[in-house]
């Protein structure tokens, strides 16, 4: 049957990756109707929610796993996948298991994770540093230290797209990288406002202040434009999730020689396991319902997982697949995953409402002359009222 799938994977690497899903699904005799919506997940999600609540649901849709679809599930608009999960024994193959947990509500499975995305990467342009005559840094401190040289060479040290979520990403990475796992969990899991206003987080805000200084002059909007600056050597580096990998790949760059990736910003070797997942709205048409199950199976099959994640630059959700073809950076990520140094992503820990407020705070901080102290004060307040 024809199944419309909505998602916001429209950049070069993403589109190539999603094509793998479509290919595999079409091979089963069904037809993947592509419903890509450009302009970041924020635009797309509002449309998806409207359509589902409007009574005209698509066959399947992307969300970030976590709490974005919580209420839709609670309202009975999504179907559960318990039967398929049982048959395919996903419980044992999905790694880390926390991924499946975040798809569960009241003991039922409502979504399937399709990949693991980690946010904690610093991407560096080897060429930019060569031009500036300094060695490629190995961690955040070195990066900050190298910045003046980059600036002298007419480069922008840190490329940042002008969207709140990108800046929040930087902050969270610094929080986990410089502050460590416990601090991260205290703030986001326990929502401890005192800690959020405390000295440890103050250090993070200091670092964020540096990042702000280093990013002056990056006049781009979207994340992949920022990545393009790194690729072309106009900027020294970018803090961005592993999906940036896809852009380097599409541009034909080789990890290690053309660019360098530092997971956990080269500091603490932790990654968060956010990622994308697919939800399946409840449909009346039994034929389509069947197709939904087929799609779920196909997405999680080992072959598709490998093909998809190689293109996307993210990590597969199955522990049992072979990623020999993976490049340098991916292997670094896989290694951390193996070590079990994984944490829940903020998407799973805080509500979209809080996320939005956080994004606003960060974009304000980056755009204006707000002091680190003020920003922290507001951050603490935000964590206090977070849900």
């Amino acid at each position, binding site marked *: 049957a024809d199944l419309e799938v909505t998602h916001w994977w429209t950049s070069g690497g993403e589109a190539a990756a999603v094509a793998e899903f479509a290919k595999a699904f079409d091979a089963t005799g069904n037809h993947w109707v592509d419903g890509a919506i450009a302009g970041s997940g*924020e635009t797309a*999600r*509002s449309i998806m*929610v*409207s359509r589902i*609540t409007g009574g005209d649901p698509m066959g399947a849709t992307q969300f970030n796993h976590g709490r*974005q679809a*919580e*209420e*839709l599930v609670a*309202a009975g608009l999504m179907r559960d996948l318990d039967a398929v999960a049982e048959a395919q024994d996903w419980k044992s193959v999905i790694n880390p298991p926390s991924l499946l947990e975040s798809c569960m509500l009241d003991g039922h499975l409502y979504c399937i994770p399709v990949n693991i995305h980690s946010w904690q990467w610093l991407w560096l342009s080897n060429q930019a540093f060569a031009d500036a005559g300094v060695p490629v840094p190995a961690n955040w401190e070195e990066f900050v230290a190298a910045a003046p040289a980059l600036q002298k060479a007419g480069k922008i040290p840190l490329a940042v797209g*002008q*969207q709140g979520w990108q800046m929040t990403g930087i902050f969270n990475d610094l929080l986990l990288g410089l502050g460590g796992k416990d601090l991260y969990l205290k703030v986001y899991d326990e929502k401890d406002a005192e800690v959020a206003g405390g000295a440890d987080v103050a250090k993070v805000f200091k670092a964020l202040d540096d990042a702000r200084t280093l990013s002056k002059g990056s*006049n781009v*909007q979207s994340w992949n434009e920022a990545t393009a600056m790194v690729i072309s050597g106009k900027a020294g580096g970018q803090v961005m999730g592993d999906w940036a990998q896809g852009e380097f790949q599409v541009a034909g760059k080789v990890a290690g020689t053309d660019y360098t990736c530092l997971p956990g910003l080269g500091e603490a070797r932790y990654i968060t396991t956010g990622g994308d997942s697919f939800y399946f709205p409840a449909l009346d048409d039994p034929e389509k319902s069947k197709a939904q199950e087929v799609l779920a199976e196909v997405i999680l099959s080992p072959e598709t997982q490998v093909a998809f994640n190689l293109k996307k630059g993210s990590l597969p959700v199955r522990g049992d697949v072979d990623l020999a073809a993976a490049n340098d950076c991916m292997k670094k990520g896989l290694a951390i995953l193996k070590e079990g140094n994984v944490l829940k992503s903020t998407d799973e820990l805080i*509500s*979209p*409402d809080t*996320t*939005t*407020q956080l994004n*606003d705070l960060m*974009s*304000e*901080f*980056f*755009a*204006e002359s707000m002091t680190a102290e003020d920003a922290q004060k507001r951050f603490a307040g935000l964590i206090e009222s977070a849900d």
Partner: protein
Amino acid sequence: MSADGPPGRLFKNISAKIASIPMILTAVVVFLGGTLWTVIYSFTDSKLLPRLNFVGLAQYERLWSTPRWIVSIENLAIYGILSLIFSFVIGFLLAALLDQQIRFENTFRTIFLYPFALSFIVTGLVWQWILNPDFGLQHIIRGLGWENFTFNPLYDARLVMFGIVLAGLWQGTGLIMCLMLAGLRGIDEDIWKAARVEGIPTWKTYLFIVIPMMRPVFVTTLVIVMAGIVKLYDLVVAMTAGGPGTASEVPAKYVYEFMFRAQNLGQGFAASTMMLLSVAVVVIPWAYLEFGGKRRG
């Protein structure tokens, strides 16, 4: 009353009433109903889906303590005042110039009007590009030798609203000009002659005689312009997405994002209610003046 009394009043003009059903439905169900619905749900803690769990004024308290909302309001005020003033002034000036029996009037008018045919998305895109410091105006002028020339409104929090006004004016003044031109053409030729015979300079004639006479045009124009200002959204999204930071946020965007992105319908509805309230404050007295009297229509 006469012996064979009047037929039911309800059936008087029955066709007119039937034909007005779409309008009545739209007015009552969509605009009035939708507004009421929005107001009611603004007192709840609805998240992704609306639910009637009342929390009193909590959403409003939060709204008015959110810096982004305050910024949005300020921005709308800046944009509103600037674009009102400039679109009226420029629109009127252009109309006055075109009214001088010039040659190529059609050509000029078409040039001034064509941006109106484009969507805000397109307008935003083009101006974003022209104002882009690395490609656009700033780049060009620096290239011409003024190395220190800086005109980078879209990435400067203090100037960003002006950049948006610039694009908004480019798109909207053509229509205003058309309205004004129509108004000017509606003014009695004799008034001009009378003023000339009295030796009143042209500018004075415009200022003291013609402009005061164009009140109805100004009212219509005001309605159209204000409606556009309150709804300002696409242009901002296309040009700056609210950035840098939250420097170019506007209320409509706040509403949209809280309803759909932040999945906090209650907050979005509270913000909508505030917007509707301010609109009502403007529209209701106007409607009263316009239709309240015993004027025809």
